[in-house]
């Protein structure tokens, strides 16, 4: 769980500028096998159970009709032919069409993806605002009372399933105190107002800001508070522990020790010397958080009826529409691979040691 600072690798190449370009190229090429492996895994797994039509309609249709539908959808062809079709489809950006409501998966993505993106951004903001300063605080007061309290809180944030945290926040703030809305991204009236915005971005806050109506903006923001807190707290705990461990490590580093021996005050050591280098590994770890965030988003969205990709995925799961599930999971695989790539590039730009 605890990730420590990466050790500086010995200098291997002395080319300087050229190595970054090479690193980016190699890293970009690595996306292809990653996506290929994930997409193939999902395909193989989903199809070992049989065809999706039997899965969703089995028992509800007479056998002849079922066979007819299977034939129409091409699920009676050899599995390798279907696999090839699937792969070429993905290459053309076609992730399949859902069985239950006959929508292309890419359309589902564009309709609901923005909601998930909005939620993920809010959650990351919460995580940064809470996790980094608190982690710094815990490291500074290492093994004293504030550190003990904060560490237990961080572990609690990890130990609480997101949906349970969501339920409890809902119970306290929406039901008992009645200060925040129970669920949804906005009230019905706001939803209607937002639909009238031309070229809606789908990110409600942006659309609300464009209407310029304070009531609409307020409504969108109050709906976002609890889901953002729920998902953000989970990530904040991870950040807190990471910052704490890394600051402790840099605090013991030679150059900080040197500054200390010159009589620099502890607070100044933290602020000017130990803090910033400790943040570098966090950039690298954000890549891994994307996966955690997406998994958490599915649960958070279900808890708060936040109509994003995760909520939609849960709906398709309940409808046993496995074509949609396969499509959405494949799309997410691509998203995860690409975000990881971007994060790695940013990390390499900040910290030259990452490049090889």
């Amino acid at each position, binding site marked *: 769980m605890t990730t420590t600072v990466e050790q500086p690798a010995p200098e291997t190449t002395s080319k300087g500028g050229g190595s970054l370009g090479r690193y980016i190229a190699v890293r970009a090429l690595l996306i292809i096998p990653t996506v290929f492996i*994930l997409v193939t895994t999902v395909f193989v797994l989903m199809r*070992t*159970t049989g065809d999706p039509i039997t899965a969703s309609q089995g028992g509800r249709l007479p056998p002849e009709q079922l066979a007819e539908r299977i034939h129409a959808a091409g699920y009676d062809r050899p599995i390798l032919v279907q696999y090839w079709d699937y792969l070429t489809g993905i290459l053309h950006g076609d992730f399949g069409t859902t069985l239950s409501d006959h929508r292309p998966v890419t359309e589902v993505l564009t309709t609901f993806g923005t909601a998930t993106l909005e939620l993920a951004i809010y959650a990351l903001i919460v995580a940064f605002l809470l996790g980094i300063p608190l982690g710094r605080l815990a490291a500074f007061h290492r*093994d004293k009372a504030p550190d003990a309290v904060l560490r237990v809180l961080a572990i609690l944030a990890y130990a609480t399933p997101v949906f*349970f945290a969501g*339920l409890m926040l809902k119970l306290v703030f929406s039901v008992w105190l009645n200060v925040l809305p129970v669920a949804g991204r906005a009230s019905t009236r706001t939803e209607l107002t937002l639909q009238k915005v031309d070229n809606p971005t789908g990110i409600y806050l942006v659309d609300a800001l464009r209407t310029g109506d304070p009531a609409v903006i307020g409504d969108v923001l109050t709906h976002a508070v609890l889901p953002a807190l729920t998902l953000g707290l989970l990530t904040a705990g991870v950040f807190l522990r990471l910052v704490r461990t890394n600051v402790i490590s840099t605090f*013991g580093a030679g150059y900080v020790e040197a500054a200390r021996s010159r009589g620099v005050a502890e607070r100044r050591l933290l602020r000017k010397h130990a803090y910033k280098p400790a943040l570098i590994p966090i950039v690298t770890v954000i890549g891994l958080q994307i996966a955690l965030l997406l998994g958490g988003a599915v649960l958070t969205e279900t808890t708060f009826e936040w109509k994003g990709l995760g909520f939609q995925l849960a709906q398709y*799961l309940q409808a046993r529409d496995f074509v949609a*599930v396969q499509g959405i999971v494949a799309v997410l695989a691509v998203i995860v691979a690409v975000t990881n790539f971007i994060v790695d590039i940013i990390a390499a730009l900040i910290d030259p040691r990452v490049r090889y």
Partner: protein
Amino acid sequence: MADATELAPPTVRRSWWTRLPVVSQLRQSIGLQRGMLIAGLVLAAIFVLAAVFAPLLAPYGYSQLRDAAGTFGAQQPPSAEHLLGTTVGGYDVLSRVIWGSRTALLVIVVAVTASILVGVLLGLISGYFGGWLDRVLVMIADAIYAFPSLLLAIVLAIVISGGQSSMWGGIFAAALSITVIFIPQYLRVTRSEVIRIKSEAFVESARVIGAGHVRIMSRHVLRNSTRTLPLILTLNASEAILTLAGLGFLGFGIEPTAAAEWGYDLNKSLSDVTAGIWWTSIFPGLAIVLVVLGLTLVGESLNDLADPRLRKRAAGPEPVEDLGVELPAGQQEGEQR
């Protein structure tokens, strides 16, 4: 990560139980770290005891809807007959919370055993032989590791059980879907250890004597490359519970008539919360939190005690690094994720 006690001059050989993984760390720890470790062990012990003695502890069966006095009734607030109330389906909350620990424990045992067996074996082969097989395995492991584990678990739950199932079907579905997520972690950890040990003199000597690959792997390499396993084991156990609960919450758990499962109960309590009914969600949720908390505390403490830079010593000032001694930290880091 050398044990402080091992570096010390040889003393009287300690009795076997003080050399057990957790016991030795407990003796080594002090202060806050010891408190955390003990608190974690206590919580974990309560969990295991509840799971083992569920039939004795639970006032009713997990799928019991009525007793001699008639049906329990749905959503009854806590009372003398039902200490924690009843659920929307008319089950006794307390009984389902207690029985739920049994399901969770079984899933942990199956999942962790399966992933250790497969993961360690693959890691051993991958690290020992190297070459293209190693590269392919590591690439697959990385791809799976970067992906949201819950989504993978969903796909696997569909494959294994078609979504809904009996008690053992559900337990195996949950456990095996978790296994696939864990294998990459065991693979990577074992592999890096194996690579480190492979180049040591005693392996070389064994090869010179003429020992075969299997013998070297099992006798010389494997036994020396399992030191970080207790740590990952506790962390994975807690992840297993969270994944199981997540699956249950999304409707891929075990049916209420087959076994009690906390995630399923929380899913059913979603609408209760909006109506202000708190007892159906708080108790199963707290059960998850406490068990995961306990296991994580144990794991965290073991991690800190294993890392000399984070470990507090019983006596003396700050440890080794202040003497300017370079620690052999390289191999250890980054591998523990």
